[in-house]
């Protein structure tokens, strides 16, 4: 019986080897997205799949589960599968550094998208939203919307590095303003219901709160609910550019009265760009630039009409 299993095991290995040889005719690239539980990454993934199809790359996409340990494991698996390149949206730049190094030692080029692996060297190319710039844009939108004498607030999440960047950009602009008061900052912990309570509490303290910058769409959803429930006039500037934001802004009679502006990332372009750069590197050995910032852009009811 034991012998039978050993034979079976050997056969499996041989078959697997044969299959991998067969598969090598096409370029294989491993992608690790931040989390499949986020719309934003799902949109990047969609774009990656489409672009790869176009370019003739075989994509292997994994869910990083917002966990550096999970991401490291995926990288190690991809190394043993001898993929041609690895591209990842890092969750914790320091946490995945050793795994990235191992991949590089194995001769596999590493690319990053969305959030950079700032502590790792020799990343071939990074394509991602400039979150600091996004934060600045958000602040500018808020300033544009505020009436004189009104205060503003921000809902963020200090647990996420990209949201921290947005906060940095936002505060950078706000600190230069002398006549506008930036009164509240709250952490919504990625939970729309928490954002609802935060907003509700602030509105009892300052019913005339002019505008709120929400550094993530779930925060907008929560804030929107609370504003509507309190019958307040606070305006929302969102961040992400997910479909629900667009749908809300379009709905000018209702949700669009509050949720008036959105700093949109461009997940489709991020996905497309990184795929193109990978192919370019694998065929020519060069990339356009080590850092390709994908600028966020503003969505309002007007821009949508166009």
């Amino acid at each position, binding site marked *: 019986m034991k012998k039978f299993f050993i034979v079976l095991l050997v056969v499996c290995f041989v078959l697997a080897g044969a299959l991998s040889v067969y598969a090598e005719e096409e370029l294989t690239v491993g992608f690790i997205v931040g989390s499949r*539980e986020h719309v934003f990454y799902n949109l990047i993934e969609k774009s990656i799949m489409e672009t790869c199809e176009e370019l003739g790359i075989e994509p292997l996409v994994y869910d990083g589960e917002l966990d550096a340990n999970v991401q490291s494991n995926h990288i190690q698996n991809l190394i043993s599968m001898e993929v041609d390149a690895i591209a990842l949206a890092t969750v914790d730049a320091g946490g995945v550094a050793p795994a990235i190094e191992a991949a590089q030692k194995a001769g596999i080029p590493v690319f990053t998208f969305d959030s950079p692996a700032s502590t790792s060297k020799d990343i071939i190319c990074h394509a991602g939203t400039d979150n600091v710039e996004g934060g600045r844009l958000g602040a500018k939108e808020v300033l544009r919307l505020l009436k004189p004498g009104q205060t503003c607030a921000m809902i963020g999440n200090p647990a996420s590095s990209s949201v921290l960047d947005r906060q940095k950009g936002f505060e950078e602009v706000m600190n230069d303003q002398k006549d506008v008061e930036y009164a509240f900052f709250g952490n919504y912990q990625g939970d729309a219901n928490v954002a609802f309570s935060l907003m*509700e509490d602030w509105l009892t303290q300052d019913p005339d709160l002019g505008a709120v910058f929400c550094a993530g769409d779930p925060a907008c959803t929560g804030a929107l609910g609370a504003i*509507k429930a309190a019958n307040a006039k606070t305006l929302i500037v969102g961040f992400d550019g997910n479909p629900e934001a667009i749908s*809300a802004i379009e709905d000018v009679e209702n949700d669009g009265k509050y949720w008036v502006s959105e700093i949109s990332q461009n997940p489709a372009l991020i996905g497309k760009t990184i795929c193109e750069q990978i192919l370019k590197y694998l065929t020519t050995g060069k990339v356009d630039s080590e850092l390709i910032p994908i600028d966020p852009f503003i969505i309002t009811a007007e821009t949508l009409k166009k």
Partner: protein
Amino acid sequence: MKQHTKRFSNFVNNNAVLIVLLLLVVFFGFSNKTFLKPNNLINITSQMSINVIIATGITFVIITGGIDISVGSVAAFAGIFSTFVAKLFPGISVVEGLAIQIASALLIGAICGLFNGIMVGYLKVVPMIATLAMMNIARGLAYVVTNGQPVYGLSNNFSWIGAGRIIETERFPLGILPNNAIFTVIIVLLMHLLLTTTVFGRHVYAVGSNEAVAYLSGVNVKKIKVLTYMISSILAALGGVCIASKLNNGQPGSAEGYEMYAIAATVLGGTSLSGGKGSVARAVIGASIIAIINNGMNLLQISSYWQKVITGVIILVAVLFDNLQRERKIKTSVK
């Protein structure tokens, strides 16, 4: 005089948690001028209502000596489900919306609870493990059916139960009573009566106090367990549709970790995790404490990191105090 101090210390001992609650109210009332404003108090009742509903359900399971960590996921799944159904009927009225919400909660809650109950009651799976499985299944399904995207674009009428208020006056143009708080009060009252006055309630306590005695006394232990898990899941699902209604939006990732808040509320109220003891009222007190801490700290602009630390410490202190009391009681009873 001695009699007096003794009576006072007895009162303190028996109502430690209630006193913590009062102290918190006094503390926040002094340190923030908004805290005791009627509007803020209305907010607190509305903010705590979801945790109260979930904690009420979980109380049944905890009294039988079990635990249900699937409540957060079940809530999310039921919330998603209700928005999914609501999306099929664009022009729904308030009543239709409510009907969809309650029907979704009953359906999803009953299915998930039945699964948990059969696992624990009939197949003898450890409650922690059975509900851990359900926690993953329900959360996974919430992502599967939505493909990870929120469900949005619902009629405003859908948010009546979660964000609406009744009794509009001049001073309170928004209404005084939040609908979800009224809804919660109704549920809590019904569940309180169910637990204290019915044979079913007695059997729940019996199973938790001593399963062998309950069985030998003719209690259908397995059935009672299934029913308690169903109650827990159905109330969690009701909480979930309230969240979805409040946000007017179905978030597959919502209510993450709410099982811990619910368990904390229940235990904080003095329900024993070893079963046989506890009540719905105690869970409500526990949930109030948590809600007041969160609201008060939001108003004081305390960083969310510290909020977590402080919440943890308060839970710990309250429960330790409770244990101390219990030990003292047992010691005096051993002659």
